């Protein structure tokens, strides 16, 4: 059956409405150019996984906080960085994070150590910061659970991701770093709308 243009537009509108009702509006960072990139693949929604390449010392984590600051959902940040580093709460609050909704736990092997976090949606957002080992079995477990429980998962890597090895279970693979000389954040999308964007540092901080 062929549809005329009017019917096609109507169907598109219905489908769009249906998908919004199902998923809710996309989670935005508030930075138009960045959100546009994510919207190319339907936008950031609960049930998705984002792999984020952010080597330490290069400020790549600040950009993640842009997505989390207006969520009004409880977030657990699994901190797997070096032992000698601890969370500095005022910097998080300064970036607009509501510390009442943010929980931290230290683990380098979230699976199997923190398995219960993935078994029920007590936390709508999970950030795995520098997990040491994630086997293919772990990936398939977390991806099915995240979908089932409608959780949003960020997996932060302490290195730049490359295109040599892909990850079919994540929706986006992004490298993020700050170029202090130019005062710009650089984002390189390896999966989910390939391309590069640069955002002035002042906009990330102030908007």
């Amino acid at each position, binding site marked *: 059956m062929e549809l005329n243009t009017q019917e096609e537009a109507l169907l598109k509108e219905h489908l769009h409405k249906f998908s919004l009702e199902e998923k809710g509006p996309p989670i935005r960072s508030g930075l138009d150019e960045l959100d546009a990139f994510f919207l190319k693949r339907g936008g950031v929604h609960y049930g998705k996984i984002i792999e984020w390449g*952010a080597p*330490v*010392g*290069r*400020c*790549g*984590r*600040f950009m993640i*906080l842009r997505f989390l600051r207006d969520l009004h959902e*409880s977030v*657990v940040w699994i*901190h797997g*960085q070096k*032992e*000698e*580093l*601890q*969370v*500095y*709460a*005022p*910097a*998080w*609050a*300064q970036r*607009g994070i*509501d*510390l*009442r*909704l*943010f*929980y*931290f*736990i*230290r*683990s380098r092997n979230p699976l199997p*150590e*923190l398995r*219960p*976090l993935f078994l*029920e949606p*007590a*936390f709508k957002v999970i950030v795995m910061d520098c997990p040491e080992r994630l086997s293919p079995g772990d990936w398939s477990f977390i991806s099915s659970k995240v979908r089932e429980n409608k959780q949003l998962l960020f997996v932060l890597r302490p290195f730049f991701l490359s295109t040599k090895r892909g990850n079919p279970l994540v929706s986006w693979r992004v490298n993020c770093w*700050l170029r*202090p000389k130019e005062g710009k954040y650089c984002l390189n999308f390896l999966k989910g709308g390939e391309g590069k964007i640069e955002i002035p540092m002042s906009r990330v*901080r*102030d908007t």
Partner: protein
Amino acid sequence: MSVISLKHYLKRGQALPSYLGIKGSLEPDEAFALGSRVMQWSEEILLIDLSNVYNYWKWAAQGEELLPFFERKLKELFGETQLQFCFAHHPFQAVLNLKQQEESFTCLGTPQGDLYFRQQDFRYWESALEEFGKHIPSKELAEFRKNIGRFNRFLERMKINRPFDILNIKQDSLERRFGKWLGRVWSWVFKGFEKVKPEPLQGDLFQTNFSSFDISFPWQGTLLKEMPFIKRFLDHPLIEWEHMCEPLVEDMNKLLKEYRELRQERVTRINWVVTLESLEEKSCSIIFRNPHSLLDDAPKFETFLFQAYYSYLSMMKEIEAREDNLDFPIRMATVGWRLEVQESLRTAHLNEDLLSGSVSSSRMEMENKLPLSLQSFGLRPSFFPEVSFGPREDEYLGEKLPWLAASKRKPLFIFNKIEPLVLEGNYKKTFLERVSTIWWHGAEPELGDRDYYLIEDNEGIMWWAFQEPTGGWFKHGLFS
């Protein structure tokens, strides 16, 4: 004696102290309505550790401040009685306060409670120390008593009447002169009055403190009068955890059926005594960070199984390490066990159905399932990074704090220890902010003037570092 009409309020951002002392004639069993850890200190004083039930009461208070909530709760539970109550940061503080307390209710951390406690006299120490002697190992008692005598003579000679008059005496110097117990007592008295620094996140799995409990204090918990228990002899030895789950769940269902009162209780500790193939009995403590309802966990007992698994795993690791050189199978088989409920909070007086679910209730449940506790932070009014935050307390200061705007470039993670930084080779430094001494709070050598910089090394890694007026550089954080 009338029940409180005095206005009590905690200082800004301060949490309710973790210990409650009750003076008067009260059976320990009645105290389990308030907490699951109860100690009979003396004939007339009971101590309750509230640290492991704190989150539960916060949830039960449904947004009400905990101090007025407890004032009301104590009236509801015990009516207009002759009992006296004292909230304190340490059990020994509660004992000391109750010795001289005239009001029916006091709370350290409130301006009034602190003022009252600061004015305490050494006269009341005598009976408190005498009672304390009953809780230390008997072989140390004679020495302890001798030291008390020497300490009293010292106070008399120096004409010192109040402990808060000699704040500059340190625990170790007192320990050297009057023995370890008096040194410890000295440090307990000032607990909560010192400056608090944030604790780093816990590192090792299973190395978790389940409460703020002071292990140097000889706490002798009162067990439940009738401890619900169940025993099992397995038909055949079991090695795999998966095979043990089914009989364990079966036993927990039986336990709940046989002891109906457990349905109205929230358990905090179950002792699981495992009998191994070698007939050795090993004790695994199944501890819930927050009071746990077995009724809600039934019939699958998922939360119970998680904590039992962590405890079993850590016990097995210990055995494997011990018997590393022996030719045993990889894991020792289990032939039976005994499960006994050792600590529980009696919540029969509460209608929990009326309490609406909230973030904190789901957090409590999740914490009971995890091997580590979740940490959350609150902000404190200070420009100095080390003291500008701590474990989250009742009041959220958030963006109300003006100093957050001082410099917008702060790292998300800082180092646990501030270490000297040697600046060599090519680096770029950008000035961020200056932090000045809080001179009006008195001299604090470790919190002197600092100029904070962003240091970018030749590999492009950005550090948060400061320079002292003397010129020394220190590494404080990492922009990650």
